[in-house]
C-alpha cells in the first residue's frame, strides 16, 4: 500500500505564555485517513497545540504546513473554512436554533430568491444525521436533544463542512456507551474517506480501539510519537506521566514521612457506590482516622468528582456516605461540613479563596456562625482563631487585613487549610493541595498533612504528583474512567504498581497482548 498523502506537517511549534513555556518545539505529522491519538496530562500542552492549529492562538515559532502549503490562521473560522474542524468537550452550537439550522449554520442552502430553503435543509439534515445514528425531528431546537445526540450533530457539522482534519477534544466525556460505539463507527468511516482525525482522550480503551498513531506530550514537549500498536498500555502510561518503569526511586523527595498508621478502628468516612451520570460509576472509598488515602488515576479518571461527591458539592444519583457511622444527606455541602468533612478544591482560585476579602475574613468564613451570637460576630474570638492559624501555618501576609487575592499560591492554600482546620474537621479531602505552589510552601503543606494525620484526622489525598501521592499515602485507591480498578496497600504503594494498575496491567493478565489486538 502506498503511503497516504501528508495532510498536515507541523515543525518546531512553540508558544510561550507569561511565565510558562506551554509548547516547546513540537512536531506533528498527519496523513490522510490517519486516526491520531494526542495525549498528555494536565498542562502537557494538548489544548495549546489544538488552539495553535485552529487559529485561536498564534505560534511564537514553528511552521504549520497544511495540504502542502504553509498556513497561518488568524481566526478559528479561517481554519474551519480551510478544512480543520474541531469538536470540543462542550458542544459549541446554538441551543435555541433547530437541529437542521445548526447543522447548516453558515452554509445554509438557499432557494432562487436567496432565502433559506428550509424544506431542503430539513430533508438533507435528516439524511445526514441518520448516518450518525441520530433519528430526531430536525425542526426541534437543538437543546431538546440529549448531550450525546448534540455531540453527534456537532460532529456531523464538522465533517459536512468538507473538513480534511477533524480534531476531537474528549468527544466521549458525555456519551453513553452505545453512543461511543456510533462515534467510533463514524471515525472509521472518516478514516476510510481519507480524513485525518486527531483524537484527544484519557480513556485508554478508546485510544486503543480507534487510533492508529500517537503523540505523547509532557510539559510542552513531544516525548513520544509512533504507531500506537507498538506501545503497550503500561509504556503509554509511564511515558505520559514521565516515570521510568522499575526505576528505583530514592525516598525522601517529599516532606512526607509516611509513618503514620491508622489506628485499627472503624472508618471515619465510608463512601459506598457513589454514582454520578457520565462521571462516576459506583466508586467506594473508606478512610480510617489517622490514615492518608491516596486517589490515583489519570486526568479525567474521576478523582476530583469523587472528592466533590463525598463533600456534597456534586449531586449523586446513587450511593451513600457515612461519617463516623452516621449517614450524610447527599448533595449538601453545609451538611457535609457540619458532619466534619471538608474539601480543599482543586481550583483554588475560583472555588477556594474569596479573593476580594481579607485573610482574616477568608480564614473565619466557614467557622463564623460558631464565633457569633444571635448573628453578631465576636471580633475578639475571630482574631484569636485567625492569629492562631496564621502563626501555626506560618501564613505570610502583610497583615490579617491583606486581601487573599494578593497572596502567593502557597499562602492562599494555607489560608484555605486554616479555614477548614478552624472547623475542627474529622476528614479532609485534599484535591491537588500542592499544585502551582512554590517548593517551600509545598514542603510545608506536605508536612502539615502528615501532622494532621498523626493527630487522627482522616485524609483523602489527590495529586498528579506521583511522588507526593506515593510517599504521602498509606493506601492508594486507583480510579479509571470513573470506577475503582484497584487498591494498593502496604508495600504495594509504589509508582510502578500504580502505573501498572492504571494501565490495567495486572500480573494475572498480559495487557501487552490485549492492547495490540485492535491495531
Amino acid at each position: 500500500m502506498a503511503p497516504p498523502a501528508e495532510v498536515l506537517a507541523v515543525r518546531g511549534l512553540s508558544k510561550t505564555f507569561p511565565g510558562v513555556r506551554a509548547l516547546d518545539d513540537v512536531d506533528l505529522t498527519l496523513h490522510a485517513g490517519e486516526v491520531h491519538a494526542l495525549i498528555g496530562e494536565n498542562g502537557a500542552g494538548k489544548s495549546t497545540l489544538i488552539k495553535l492549529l485552529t487559529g485561536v492562538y498564534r505560534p511564537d515559532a514553528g511552521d504549520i504546513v497544511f495540504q502542502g502549503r504553509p498556513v497561518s490562521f488568524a481566526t478559528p473560522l479561517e481554519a474551519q473554512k480551510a478544512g480543520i474542524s474541531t469538536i470540543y468537550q462542550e458542544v459549541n452550537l446554538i441551543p435555541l436554533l433547530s437541529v437542521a439550522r445548526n447543522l447548516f449554520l453558515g452554509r445554509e442552502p438557499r432557494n432562487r430568491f436567496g432565502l433559506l430553503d428550509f424544506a431542503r435543509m430539513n430533508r438533507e439534515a435528516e439524511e445526514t444525521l441518520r448516518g450518525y445514528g441520530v433519528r430526531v425531528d430536525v425542526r426541534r431546537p437543538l437543546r431538546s436533544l440529549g448531550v450525546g445526540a448534540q455531540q453527534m450533530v456537532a460532529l456531523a457539522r464538522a465533517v459536512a463542512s468538507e473538513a480534511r482534519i477533524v480534531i476531537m477534544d474528549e468527544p466521549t466525556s458525555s456519551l453513553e456507551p452505545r453512543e461511543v460505539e456510533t462515534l467510533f463507527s463514524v471515525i472509521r468511516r472518516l478514516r476510510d474517506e481519507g480524513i485525518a482525525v486527531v483524537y484527544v482522550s484519557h480513556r485508554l480503551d478508546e485510544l486503543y480501539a480507534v487510533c492508529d498513531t500517537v503523540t505523547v506530550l509532557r510539559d510542552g514537549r513531544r516525548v513520544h510519537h509512533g504507531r500506537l500498536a507498538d506501545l503497550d498500555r503500561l509504556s503509554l502510561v509511564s511515558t505520559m506521566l514521565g516515570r521510568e518503569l522499575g526505576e528505583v526511586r530514592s525516598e525522601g523527595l517529599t516532606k512526607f514521612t509516611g509513618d503514620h498508621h491508622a489506628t485499627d478502628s472503624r472508618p471515619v468516612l465510608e463512601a459506598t457506590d457513589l454514582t454520578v451520570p457520565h462521571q462516576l460509576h459506583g466508586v467506594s472509598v473508606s478512610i480510617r482516622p489517622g490514615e492518608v488515602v491516596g486517589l490515583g488515576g489519570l486526568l479525567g479518571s474521576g478523582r476530583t468528582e469523587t472528592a466533590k461527591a463525598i463533600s456534597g458539592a456534586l449531586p449523586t444519583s446513587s450511593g451513600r456516605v457515612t461519617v463516623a457511622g452516621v449517614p450524610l444527606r447527599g448533595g449538601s455541602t453545609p451538611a457535609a461540613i457540619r458532619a466534619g468533612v471538608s474539601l480543599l478544591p482543586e481550583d483554588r482560585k475560583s472555588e477556594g479563596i474569596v479573593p476580594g476579602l481579607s485573610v482574616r475574613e477568608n480564614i473565619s468564613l466557614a467557622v463564623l456562625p460558631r464565633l457569633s451570637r444571635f448573628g453578631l460576630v465576636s471580633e475578639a474570638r475571630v482574631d484569636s482563631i485567625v492569629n492562631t492559624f496564621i502563626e501555626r501555618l506560618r501564613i505570610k501576609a502583610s497583615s490579617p487585613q491583606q486581601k487573599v487575592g494578593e497572596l502567593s499560591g502557597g499562602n492562599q492554600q494555607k489560608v484555605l487549610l486554616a479555614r477548614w482546620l478552624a472547623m475542627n474537621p474529622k476528614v479532609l479531602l485534599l484535591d491537588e493541595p500542592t499544585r502551582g505552589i512554590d517548593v517551600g510552601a509545598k514542603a510545608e503543606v506536605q508536612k502539615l498533612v502528615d501532622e494532621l494525620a498523626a493527630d487522627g484526622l482522616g485524609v483523602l489525598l489527590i495529586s498528579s504528583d506521583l511522588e507526593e501521592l506515593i510517599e504521602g499515602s498509606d493506601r492508594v485507591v486507583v480510579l479509571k474512567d470513573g470506577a475503582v480498578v484497584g487498591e494498593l496497600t502496604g508495600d504495594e504503594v509504589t509508582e510502578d504498581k500504580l502505573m501498572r494498575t492504571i494501565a490495567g496491567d495486572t500480573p494475572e493478565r498480559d495487557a501487552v497482548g490485549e492492547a495490540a489486538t485492535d491495531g
Partner: protein
Amino acid sequence: MAEAAVKTVPLDKARALQWLQTYGVYAGVALLLIVNIAITPHFLSAENFRTQAVQVAPVIIVALGMALVIGTEGVDLSVGAVMALAASVTALYLGYGLVPALLVVAVFAAVVGLANGALVALVGVQPIVATLALMVGGRGVALVLLPQLEDLRNPQLASLGSGDVLGIPYLILIAAVLALLVAFVVRRTTFGRQLLAIGDSRPAAQLAGLPVRRVLILVYVVSALLAAVAGVLATARLQASDPTSLGNLMELSAITAVVVGGTPLTGGRVNIAGTVAGAVLIQLLTATLIKHDLPPSWTQIAQAVVIVAAVYAARGRGKR
C-alpha cells in the same frame, strides 16, 4: 486576574482611579457645596439644607437596600414598585390605625422580597430579570389596590412626614439610623460577611458551606422592606397616596447612588458611607441645576456624566 489587571495599568494611574472610586464621591459633594455657597443665593440656610435632606432621605433608604443587593452581584429593579405598593396599602389600611397599616405594608413588601429572592436563589433567574418581573407586576398590583391618587388625612401619618425632633425632621433621623444599622450589619454580622463572600465568589462561598440561598433571599427581603419604609415616608410627606408616580425611576436613582458611592457592580464589596454620599451628590447636582433655572433635561445629562465617571473609576479595579 487582579494582579494581571494591576500590572497592565500603570501604577500611578491605577492608584488615581482607586482613589477616585473610594473618595471621588466625597470630593464631588464637597465641590458642589463650595460652588453653591459661592454662586447660589440663599444656599447657605438651614431651611435649604432641611429641604434638600428631606428630599434625599427616601433615596438614601432605598439605596441602602440596593447596596446590599449589589454587594451580592445582583440588582433590585422592583424597589420603585414596592414604594408604590407601600403607598397603596397604607391608604387602604390607614383606617385601622397607622401601626396596623404599617404592619400590612411590611407583609406585602416581605412577599415581594421573598418572590425576588426565591426567583434568584432557588430558580436561578438572573437578578435583573427576576426583579424586572416584580417591578412591572408590583406596580400593577399597587394600581389594582388603589387606582388613583388619594389624599390621606391622618394626623399620625402627617407628623411622621413633617414632624421633627430638636429641629431634625423624622425623615432624616430615620434615614440616618437605618444607614448606621445597615453599615453595622455589613461589618459586624455573619449575614453581612456571608453576603460579601457570596458576592465576591459564589462557587467558593458554596464550597465553604455558606447558606447561600438563605442569604440571597434575605438580602432581597431587606431591600424590599427598606423600599417600603421609603414609600411610607414619601407618602407621609405628600399626605397622599400616589401609586401611579411614586417611586418612578427610583431604582435608577438608587443604583446610581450605590455605584457613584464606590460599590462595584461586580459584588463582594459594599460601601454604605459612599452610598449615602452618592445619593447626596445626585441630590445636590439636581438642586444646583434647578436653582440656576436649567431645564430638567440638563439634570439627566449631568447625572449621566457622573455615572460614566463612576463606572470609569471602577474599571481600574475590574473583576478578579
